[in-house]
């Protein structure tokens, strides 16, 4: 995309709450709410794509890391009174530690066994959230998670209380994830990740330790998922076990694989389409899920490599990163 077009697009995205207010004042709250979800899901999907798209390990454990982060932040904020920025960092750290610990045995499994093992981890995390009532309150959920307050101790503080405010916060988080994603997936690091994904035995001959790079992507992906989980919990102000079920994995799989696995643009487009689309289809409530399913099928049939490959063909460009 030319630089000017990118700038215009970024401008439109940042100005979205005002545009919505001008275009559909009565719908603003709802539309901005969907936009917030879209930004959070885009960030989460990018963190997931680090693992499935760039080192090629089909992990199904992402809800576990999202949940560990969300619960860590929720508990620290409600019971220990931690400030927002501190509990977000703690959430990322907690998810990363879990990923690093379970990653070592999980990566001894390959391909399908790895997928099933990570699916097991996701289920265990959900069961723990449901049953460890002393800590998570189980199905009663953790409630009253405070609105984020930005700022360092002693300095000026900025409370994020409005919906547009939260949208910009989510957008800033997404921007940070995008920057990190690009740093990780290009140049020498990206090359090492892709080598492991494309041909593991040959990666060994190139001096790359496949386990190390797989664990690295897995752990960083988990840390980012944990941070997004924290933002999510602060936004909803409630955290329940249902937020971390297999349904979340399915959502992420749809976004990443139908958007364009291993591609920044593809995943972003996927996140916008598959988060906003089901909401837009509420205009036709009866047919909503039917239309959604039909569209999924259409993408799978017409473009098995995802929407990214369609965009690429349309622009006649070389493979994007």
């Amino acid at each position, binding site marked *: 995309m030319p630089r000017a077009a990118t700038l215009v697009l970024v401008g439109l995205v940042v100005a979205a709450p005002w545009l919505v207010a001008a275009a559909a004042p009565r719908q603003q709250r709802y539309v901005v709410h969907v936009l917030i979800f879209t930004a959070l899901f885009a960030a989460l999907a990018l963190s997931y794509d680090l693992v499935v798209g760039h080192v090629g390990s089909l992990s199904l454990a992402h809800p576990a890391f999202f949940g560990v982060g969300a619960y860590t932040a929720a508990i620290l904020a409600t019971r220990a009174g931690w400030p927002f920025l501190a509990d977000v960092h703690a959430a990322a750290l907690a998810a990363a530690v879990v990923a690093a610990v379970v990653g070592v045995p999980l990566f001894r499994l390959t391909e399908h066994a790895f997928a099933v093992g990570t699916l097991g981890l996701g289920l265990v995390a959900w069961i723990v959230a449901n049953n460890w009532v002393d800590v998570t309150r189980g199905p009663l959920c953790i409630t009253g998670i405070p609105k984020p307050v930005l700022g360092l101790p002693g300095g000026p503080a900025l409370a994020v209380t409005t919906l547009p405010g939260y949208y910009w916060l989510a957008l800033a988080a997404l921007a940070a994830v995008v920057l990190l994603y690009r740093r990780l997936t290009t140049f020498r690091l990206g090359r*090492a990740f892709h080598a492991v994904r494309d041909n593991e*035995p040959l990666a060994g001959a190139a001096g790359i330790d496949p386990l190390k790079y797989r664990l690295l992507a897995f752990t960083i992906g988990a840390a980012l998922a944990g941070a997004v989980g924290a933002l999510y919990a602060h936004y909803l102000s409630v955290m329940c076990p249902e937020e971390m079920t297999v349904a979340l994995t399915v959502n992420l799989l749809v976004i990443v694989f139908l958007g364009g696995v291993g591609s920044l643009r593809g995943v972003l487009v996927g996140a916008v389409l598959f988060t906003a689309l089901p909401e837009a289809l509420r205009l036709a409530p009866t047919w909503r899920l039917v239309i959604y399913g039909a569209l999924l099928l259409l993408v799978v049939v017409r473009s098995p490599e995802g929407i990214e490959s369609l965009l690429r063909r349309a622009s006649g460009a070389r493979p994007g990163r």
Partner: protein
Amino acid sequence: MALLEVRGLVKHFIGVTALDRVDLAVERGELVSLIGPNGSGKTTLFNCITGYVAADGGRAIFRGNDLTNVPPHRVARLGVARTFQQVSVFPRLSVLENLLVFLQQHQEEHLLARLLRTRRLRRLESEALERARRLLDLVGLSDNADDAAGSLSYGQRKLLAFAAALMPDPDLLLLDEPAAAVNPTMINQMKDHILALHRQGKTVLLVEHNMEVVMDISQRVVVLDHGQKIAEGPPDAIRRDARVIEAYFGR
């Protein structure tokens, strides 16, 4: 002491002894070929030396380092490069990136340095680029530098894999059938490349079925049959060796 010393290497697969107390020494600067009928253990020997297969007994020692139970990426970083019989490239990386990725791990950097792309790292990268372009030129793939490696022809991929193995300037090069299944022009090309390496003083251990290539360029030939070393010597002697003739043609 030889650059590579293999002592009494043993490897059993279920029901088969793939390597049966194999001894082998390769001196610095030598060009040695490893031949033998299919299934005689040549590739298994390569796999044991480079850490892809754990040996059941014996050792392989490279420049004084015991390679037993050392994983492939560590063997590579010690200065042993290898190619694979089945042509092996990273299909979704570009041709140029396929070369770059073979050098970068030998310039171990902190994760943080890679993330921040320090000045030192960018300098190393531009030197690597220069070297990669020279090697592409050497094997005649300069015009394909930006293509995905998966889009190359079989022969081109073979040349790319060869060039990639040279990227880190290895002390020992293990080539697994570089002249198999390519056209006669390319066989000659490969032969010239290997001879050129030899003249530069590189140490090469070659597995090859093409006897013309083997007899033309090797200083010394080692023959395996059923996992055992049955003969070793200069090409002329091997050609006349009764046990070798028997192994290849039967009695």
